[in-house]
């Protein structure tokens, strides 16, 4: 028992020889967000507060695909989405199609707490944001030069890609659409010493996605889920995660098949197509697991017994 926390900055085809200037800011971001999450748990904040807090930090970080740093739609705009779930009550909130809200995850929480609904999207969500007085900015705030370049690259190759594709060197061939980097999304899961669980996930979505495309992130049971068994946040190719009801299935395997957290996570990750999915999860008893069938997943975790780790690729690779 004891508290535990895990967070991620997206899974995908992260090049094993990722340049330092791309790797270090992300590792630093993971480290910083982990510290914030751990401090909050030690200060006895509820897991729901902790996951919101950490995801806000990840959204504000320009190198991850959420909030500032979100990837762009085919029109060069941002459309952000997020969801949050309280494992103790199974209450949840979700938003999609945000263009001016600085912290999508906080709006998702407000939907959960201040409306009779679970999910608000597009104009309705933006109007709600104004009613609630959350921080909004001009959409240009979210756009980074890296993502403008990624969009151009994707449009030239005429494909939809999950982000973090390294910019192409001139000599390289354009990789085929199937071998695409499949990174997206940020997320955090946490459990306190009493077994209360919460999960939060936020994203800009897929590079060059159609306007109005919704992925797995705001879909309860797909990209985000928490109940009394575990809390899960998934990342990767949204369409695969939705079909696989990934986050819900981890909990369902624990509940209905008696699998452990690690076994359940492994089962689910193996059952989705290779290269499409990663997830982080914590259990009511304070266990953590972070698994992925992609090349890498930006991730970090810590538990009350003092263990902590930050990672990108599979153990053994570097």
């Amino acid at each position, binding site marked *: 028992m004891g508290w535990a926390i895990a967070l991620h900055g997206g899974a995908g085809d992260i090049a094993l020889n990722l340049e330092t200037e791309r790797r270090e800011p992300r590792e630093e971001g993971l480290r910083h967000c982990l510290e914030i999450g751990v401090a909050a748990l030690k200060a006895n904040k509820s897991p729901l507060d902790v996951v919101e807090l950490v995801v806000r930090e990840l959204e504000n970080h320009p190198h991850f695909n959420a909030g500032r740093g979100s990837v762009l739609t085919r029109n060069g705009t941002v459309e952000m989405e997020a969801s949050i779930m309280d494992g103790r009550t199974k209450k949840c909130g979700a938003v999609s199609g945000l263009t001016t809200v600085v912290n999508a995850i906080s709006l998702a929480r407000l939907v959960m707490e201040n409306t009779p609904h679970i999910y608000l999207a*597009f104009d309705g969500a933006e109007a709600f944001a104004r009613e609630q007085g959350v921080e909004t900015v001009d959409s240009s705030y979210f756009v980074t030069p890296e993502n403008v370049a990624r969009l151009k690259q994707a449009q030239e190759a005429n494909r939809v890609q999950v982000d973090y594709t390294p910019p192409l060197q001139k000599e390289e061939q354009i990789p085929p659409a199937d071998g695409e980097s499949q990174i997206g999304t940020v997320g955090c899961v946490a459990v306190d010493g009493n077994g209360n669980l919460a999960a939060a996930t936020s994203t800009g979505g897929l590079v060059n996605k*159609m306007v109005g495309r919704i992925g797995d992130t705001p879909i309860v049971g797909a990209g985000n889920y928490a109940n009394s068994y575990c809390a899960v946040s998934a990342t990767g190719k949204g369409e695969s995660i939705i*079909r696989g009801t990934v986050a819900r299935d981890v909990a369902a395997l624990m509940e209905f098949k008696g699998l452990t957290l690690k076994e359940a996570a492994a089962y689910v990750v193996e059952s989705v197509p290779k290269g499409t999915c990663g997830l982080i999860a914590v259990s009511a008893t304070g266990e953590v697991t972070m698994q992925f069938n992609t090349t890498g997943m930006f991730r970090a975790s810590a538990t009350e017994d003092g263990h902590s780790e930050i990672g990108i690729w599979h153990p053994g690779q570097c």
Partner: protein
Amino acid sequence: MGGWAIAVHGGAGIDPNLPVERQEEAKQLLTRCLNVGISALRTNCPAIDVVELVVRELETDPLFNSGRGSALTEHGTVEMEASIMDGKGRRCGAVSGLVTVKNPISLARLVMDKSPHSYLAFSGAEAFARQQVCWCCGDFQGVELVDNEYFITEENKGMLKQAKEANSILFDYRIPLPGNETCLAAAAENVLQMNGLPISVYAPETVGCVVVDCQGNCAAATSTGGLMNKMTGRIGDSPIIGSGTYACDLCAVSCTGEGEAIIRATLAREVAAVMEYRGMGLQEAVNFVIKEKLDEGKAGLIAVSSKGEVAYGFNCTGMFRGCASQDGFMEVGLWE
């Protein structure tokens, strides 16, 4: 066992005082739609085509809350959503925030078949609908588009007004409202509500169809106008894969009722999960999920299994439904 089976629903949470003529109208529509599905199944039509066909019928008829006859938003407009899932391969498509698409379920199908994504919403979904329209060799392809006015019925305008009044009543039950006895009674005694509205005002949400075809493939489809007096941009359970709709190689499920409860319970996936991970049979799974997984929420669902079984369950006052299977079984009902 084996063979085809089909179930349809027109929403759960029926006013016990619903006039008998309305009950009869509903039964006739359910019977007609069942027969549309049965005819298709007898010609070996694949499950995914049958569910789309049947839900189109349900959307087009103004009686139930989907397509024409959809519940109205707080602004008196219609925003429709739908999802479809093919158990074979677990492909899926979903749409939300539609305002001009005559048959939302068909757009959901096009998202599944013709786009790189699974879910499109609002202006992006409407734009996609327009892109799909074309005349190829004189044949119309794509989805039919109409004015938002087409979907709005006088009856629902009246219901919206009542819902707005009921929402204010629920906040202050001391204010008497002349001539609106049911609302007042319900509010004062806190009796028979669905989604925070007195049952007399609540529009049973959603229509759906689940089918297993002669090959044992399952498919599910669900479509709705959503909650009466909903906030603009509110999305319910119907377009959410795993909540309102789900299909895999074991079964297909379509749910209706309190959207929040259905989403929290990931209700449709839950039926399949207990079959897959606990080895439960279809009816056992349906009963278990309805009884154990809804907490305080009220909902219903229909389901078929790859073995040709059909089942339904609900924990609220009634669900418009019909079922049939290849062995000659056929039943249409509203109450327990």
